[in-house]
């Protein structure tokens, strides 16, 4: 399987604090990879580095063998853990913006998904709740025909009733060769869709394997392995 994303010896330091320490990992084409770890483990830092929002202190990040560039940004669809659209915009405005910038954006699909999620495409984002704004962003991200979807806590602000729909939407809307790098605390919800998992703790990769292999080896679910690995000792 071809390597889509490769992080090689990536370190990110803030002053004296090392947030990522010599991290190396890969995301192969056509795989759904769970990036799992406790709060502050470095999951969001990895995702921000991949999306050129942070500059690594050392190491290299390659997408399809090349450095992150406008070309790779076209092929990576990123859902950050915060709302980033101008709050004066409506979902329709956002669709126009995405259509203008991303040739791989499917506006019809986005409008259909807005409708499914009961989102008014003409309502200003400022008038929407945080959860609704997150749904708008999720729709925009999955409506792109990208090679890699980087989803940072996509279920965080979504109510439990909508989580299934969101997961189905994620799965339904990307093509076979595409990969998903997903970070979440709600492992039980995404457990069934994961192909590979990466466990990260205190800025270091502590485990990288196929989800099936791990389940067989430990005779436990990924959620249970996660809980055991990151158990807080009192």
């Amino acid at each position: 399987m071809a390597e889509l994303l490769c992080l090689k010896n990536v370190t990110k330091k803030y002053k004296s604090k090392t947030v990522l320490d010599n991290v190396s990992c890969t995301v192969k084409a056509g795989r759904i990879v769970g990036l799992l770890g406790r709060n502050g483990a470095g999951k969001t830092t990895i995702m921000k580095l991949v999306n050129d929002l942070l500059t690594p202190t050392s190491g290299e990040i390659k997408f399809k063998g090349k450095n992150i560039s406008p070309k790779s940004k076209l092929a990576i669809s990123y859902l950050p853990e915060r709302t980033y659209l101008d709050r004066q915009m409506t979902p329709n405005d956002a669709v126009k913006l995405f259509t203008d910038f991303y040739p791989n954006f499917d506006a019809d699909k986005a409008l259909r998904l807005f409708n499914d999620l009961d989102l008014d495409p003409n309502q200003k984002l400022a008038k929407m709740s945080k959860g609704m704004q997150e749904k708008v962003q999720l729709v925009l991200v999955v409506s792109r025909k990208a090679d890699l979807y980087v989803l940072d806590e996509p279920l965080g602000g979504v109510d439990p009733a909508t989580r299934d729909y969101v997961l189905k939407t994620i799965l339904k809307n990307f093509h076979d060769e595409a990969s998903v790098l997903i970070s979440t605390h709600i492992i039980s919800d995404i457990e069934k869709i994961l192909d590979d998992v990466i466990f990260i703790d205190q800025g270091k990769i502590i485990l990288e394997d196929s989800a099936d292999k791990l389940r067989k080896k430990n005779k436990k679910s990924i959620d249970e392995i996660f809980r055991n690995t990151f158990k807080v000792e009192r």
Partner: protein
Amino acid sequence: MLNKIIKYDFKSMSKKISSFYIIAFSFAIATALSRLLPESTFSIILSSVLSGTTISFAVASLLINTAIRIWFNFRSSVFGDEAYLTHTLPVTKTEIFFGKVISSTLIMLVGIAVGILALFITYVGSDVLTKVFETLDIFANLFGVSGWLLVLIFSVLILLETFCVMFVGFLGIIIGHSYETNKPLKSFVVGLTIYVGTQITAVLFMLFAGIFNHDVFKIFSSTEFYPNVIILLAVFGIFGYVVNIIILLFCGNKALNAGVNVE
């Protein structure tokens, strides 16, 4: 892609600033209409209050409000929440930087045009405009050039100084955000330091004019008025600001291309 960045940035900023333009125009029209009222103490007070408000709004929207909003917009879209969209668009950092530079320049020009137009509406039909033109004629005769050339030279000088201040802010924000703590304060301190540097450069350029006209140095020691020297200094000042702006844009683009750290 550059034109798309300019389009969306201009649209986003003009939405936020347009309410100030509407207020400036409303007061300008109200001032002009108040002059049609029969002359009385009330109408004189009303006209003074309205014209005073128009002037403060015109100046506020002209420079202060527009400049502050441009800097806030730059900070928010390059280092704030909106940066999550900006830096993930399939564009280069150079396109992002120059897109912001061009859209901000356009917004500033619109702000200046609105301010001037509001002032013109305020005083249309009054003797203020006549007096302005008379004063301009006096200065034109004094300087020995046409009134329009005089306006052009000093307008260009003021415009370049305004753009210089704006781009100093951009560079200050980029460098200030390369630090890990107190980013807004550091942006301000760095910006202020760079601004002092640009002013020194502009003055040095003006002094450079002394090579071509020795009267330049006399203005520091004599009380005599040298109109040709003032024009020469203004022209060299223009060169100084052009050089400053080129350096600021080059450094700003280089600093942004060195990478960002969005919180």
